[in-house]
């Protein structure tokens, strides 16, 4: 049916935001994702005050299997895997969030300018975006890290540099779409300034897909950092989950737990954020809201 509003024009809850949260919490998977994330955040913030220890410290016999003494076993140097995982949570979150913030800033600014001003601005910025899109991210970051000294800042920046393009394209697409709507023209007809139209009118309406993209971006940033650390290209002073797997991978046949558990931690963290993104997507998608 082409016009579903007709069926049901009046019975609706009031504020869009309230409606969004109701939709989100009705989605079991999304709530699961939220719970997973609260767990990770809790671990990152309070984990080490409850389960103390230095992840680099060798506390037991090498390659002790999971058991009573070490819940998740020890690695080839006798470092406790559980301490490592708890410690890694904060690093993972820190990198995931800061890289996402950088990504969003670069991507949204470029997308907004390209989408709103169009013409040569759009042309130029989109060419730049396409250029960054053809660079294979991992190889490009490898070159960056190899030429400059690896540090947590370089890694955050590198992740942002290779992942802003998607954000920029999405923002641009949304701006192009919304810019054509009559309420934006109406705003101009009332004498609003460009900056105010961009920030106060178009951006809030472009937010739903952007929020979903941001959630997914946190996931990809975490995965990217993990892959870098796995390859031994991360900050050598950061005991991250990827590093744990990378450093133990030669002992894969002898101590499966040193690889399985940190990997599972990454998996659950990213899964959590993906589920949240999915739930937001469903809640924000007007097509699914109708019935």
């Amino acid at each position: 049916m082409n016009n579903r509003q007709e069926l049901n024009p009046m019975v609706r809850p009031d504020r869009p935001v309230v409606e969004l949260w109701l939709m989100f919490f009705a989605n079991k998977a999304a709530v699961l994702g939220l719970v997973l994330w609260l767990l990770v955040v809790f671990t990152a913030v309070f984990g080490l005050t409850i389960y103390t220890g230095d992840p680099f410290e060798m506390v037991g016999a090498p390659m002790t299997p999971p058991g009573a003494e070490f819940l998740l076993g020890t690695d080839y140097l006798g470092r406790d895997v559980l301490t490592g995982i708890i410690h890694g949570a904060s690093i993972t979150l820190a990198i995931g969030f800061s890289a996402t913030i950088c990504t969003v800033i670069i991507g949204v600014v470029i997308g907004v300018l390209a989408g709103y001003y169009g013409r040569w601005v759009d042309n130029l910025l989109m060419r730049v975006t396409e250029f960054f899109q053809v660079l294979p991210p991992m190889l490009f970051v490898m070159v960056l890290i190899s030429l400059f000294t690896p540090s947590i800042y370089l890694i955050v920046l590198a992740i942002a540099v290779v992942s802003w393009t998607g954000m920029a394209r999405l923002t641009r697409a949304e701006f192009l779409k919304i810019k054509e709507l009559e309420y934006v023209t109406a705003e101009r007809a009332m004498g609003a300034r460009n900056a105010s139209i961009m920030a106060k009118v178009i951006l809030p309406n472009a937010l739903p897909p952007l929020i979903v993209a941001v959630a997914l971006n946190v996931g990809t940033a975490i995965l990217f950092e993990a892959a870098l650390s796995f390859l031994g290209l991360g900050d050598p002073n950061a005991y991250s989950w990827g590093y744990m797997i990378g450093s133990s991978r030669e002992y894969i046949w002898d101590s499966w737990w040193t690889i399985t558990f940190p990997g599972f931690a990454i998996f659950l963290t990213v899964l959590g954020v993906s589920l949240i993104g999915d739930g937001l997507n469903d809640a924000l998608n007007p097509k699914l809201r109708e019935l």
Partner: protein
Amino acid sequence: MKTILTGLNRTIYSLVLLLAVIVLNFILVHIAPGDAVTAMIGDMGGATPELIAKLRADYGLDRSLFTQLYTHIWKMMHGDLGTSFTHRVPVRDLILDHLPATILLVTTAFFLAIIIGTVLGIIAAQKPKSFVNHVVTVLSLSGFSAPIFWTGLMLLIAFAYLLPIFPAFGMSTPGFQGTTLEVMFDVLKHLVLPAVTLASVYIAVYSRLARASMLDVLGSDYIRTARSKGLSRRIVVYKHALKNGILPVVTMAGLQFSQLIAGAVVVETVYGWPGIGQLAFNAILRRDHPLLLGILFFSTLMVVIANLITDFSYRILDPRIK
């Protein structure tokens, strides 16, 4: 005529992109700490003073930046990517040696992902509230969320260690002799795990995309038209809807090809697959910058070619693009 011109348009544009990559490489080397040659050599011990002197001359560091850039581009255009310190052979030859393995891995994973992803997406889209749909959602979310190296290692534990059906390492059994067919089969056996690992992420991505786009297409007016003609559900879905529904998948596949290559770097390291990813990994360990930059250039070239191909197939699939 118009098609040829637009094709030419795209090709010229791709060449400009490649040129930009060359310039980027040049800029990176120049803004790195130390001069270009020290940056190139890095902390690698193998460089003799003569080699350094030769390099300085090669790069013409005494000349102006513009001349340097010009020479650099000129050399790249003639396929001269410099010499690898660690291997002491031209970078180009090294890369060309390793490229086929990567191409085999990437294309296998690419088609695996597109085909399986699309099929899963179509199945899920037909019954939006069914069990199959939930399975596809869970599968794709998991595929997306699992770190690719970890998936690889888990598959290794499962299918090379606990249940040893597939070899764990390399592209062929060392010293394996046999007919061409047997050699091919041997390579195939080695290919399964890396290809599945690499594909897993993209199966997830494409199945979600295909599902969303098929849902969209199935609700469109022309699908109703097709049904009003009395076509069966099967023809409506697999003829009328599919050709439209696959368009976003093709677009996305083109856009993500660079990430596929990046993923291959990680997968090759996990499985010891002798492609350019592994070459890059070794190059970075030994700070072999000419090799690393050469690999970046070559892989970008691959992406650009793949983009041209997807662009072309998009034009075939969608007559509206002219």
